[in-house]
């Protein structure tokens, strides 16, 4: 087994159930079969639902402790991310962004737990999240400005009429590019931690191919470096959840306030 195979084994999602084909409109026949990654995502959802609902509704001392952990994060999303961008509209979008932040955070952290899959280290998961952002941009733009005004304001004001169609195409592509950048940023950052950790651990076996003693001497530094990267991944999990939420708010805010 070479390094690429080890990486593929750990990072590529493999369908575990029988093929479930569903016809989804223009997408045609899609395999909706389950996989470890989807199950991990559902576990993340269940953890988020149970923890947040318990913290929000229970009056026990444990719930109070959990509330004291979640509330600063929720207030941070509301006061430091949404209110500067959305102003008095912040309350309308708050549940979406709070869910986005906690969902990404839970998935990121759950990806660090042994026997769980790195949900956000998969580009097709982050693509789904980016599509949700794209949909929210369109929804918020049309809701706040109206359809015609939103389409007109996709191109900045003061552009010569002759350049308008060209700029319209560029701006629409820009809108997709923003979402694609969201998708790639999250996927690449979360994948990088796994790849680097695996690379450090594989160093033991690579050096062991040369000499068993050499390989044994690499155990401590390799595991130490892998643990360091693992600790960094915890920080990156929070950071990437914040960055994805903040950039989504920024892009949606651009559609809500075109000027």
């Amino acid at each position, binding site marked *: 087994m070479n390094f690429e195979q080890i990486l593929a084994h750990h990072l590529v999602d493999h369908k575990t159930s029988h093929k479930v084909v569903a016809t989804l409109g223009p997408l045609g026949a899609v395999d909706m079969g389950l996989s470890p990654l989807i199950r991990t995502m559902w576990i993340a959802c269940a953890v988020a639902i149970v923890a947040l609902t318990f913290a929000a*509704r229970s009056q026990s001392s444990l719930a109070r402790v959990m509330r004291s952990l979640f509330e600063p994060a929720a207030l941070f999303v509301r006061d430091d991310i949404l209110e500067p961008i959305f102003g008095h509209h912040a309350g309308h979008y708050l549940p979406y962004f709070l*869910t986005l932040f906690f969902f990404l955070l839970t998935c990121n952290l759950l990806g660090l737990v042994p026997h769980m899959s790195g949900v956000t280290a998969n580009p097709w998961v982050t693509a789904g999240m980016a599509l949700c952002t794209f949909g929210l941009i369109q929804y918020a733009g049309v809701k706040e400005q109206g359809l015609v005004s939103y389409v007109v304001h996709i191109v900045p004001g003061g552009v010569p009429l002759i350049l308008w169609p060209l700029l319209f195409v560029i701006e629409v592509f820009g809108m997709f590019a923003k979402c694609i950048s969201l998708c790639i940023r999250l996927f690449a950052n979360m994948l990088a931690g796994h790849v680097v950790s695996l690379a450090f651990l594989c160093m033991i076996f690579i050096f062991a191919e040369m000499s068993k003693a050499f390989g044994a001497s690499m155990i401590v530094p390799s595991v130490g470096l892998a643990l360091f990267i693992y600790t960094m991944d915890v920080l990156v999990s929070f950071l990437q959840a914040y960055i994805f939420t903040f950039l989504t708010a920024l892009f949606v805010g651009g559609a809500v306030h075109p000027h």
Partner: protein
Amino acid sequence: MGDLLTPDVGLTVWTIVTFLCLVAILKAFAWGPLLKSVEDREARLRADREGAERARAEAERIQRELEAQMAGVQAKSRELLSAATKDGEVLRARLKAEAEADAAAIKARTTLELAAEKDKLAGDLRKEVASLSVLAAEKLLRKSVDAGVQKSVLEGFFKDLDSGKKAGSN
């Protein structure tokens, strides 16, 4: 690793469905109560702060009122003290004047009484002297004089005495 980039539309659809369901579930069960408790606490803190500011303003107002009342009381007490001092001065002057007037009246009355007593004593003395003079003259003259003659002689004597006294005093 190429498998990682192989399109997996099913996974993307599951992600979107799962995430949107999570938004709906958390909005229904978690965010409402959590945000409500946060907003309640913020409202309570805001109310407490406003209450504290109101109490401070009330305390400052009461302090200003008390200071104003204290200044009024001090001014009034100074005024009362000044009025009492003035009344005391007036009373003292009045009592002094009354005492002086009483003393003057007593002195005048005493003077008059003394003068009257002196006159009375002088009259009595004159009568006594006259009797003694008549007696002496009677003895000298060895001559008996009746009461009518005695009276006319005495009157004449007194008249001469008075005129002699006035001439002497002039």
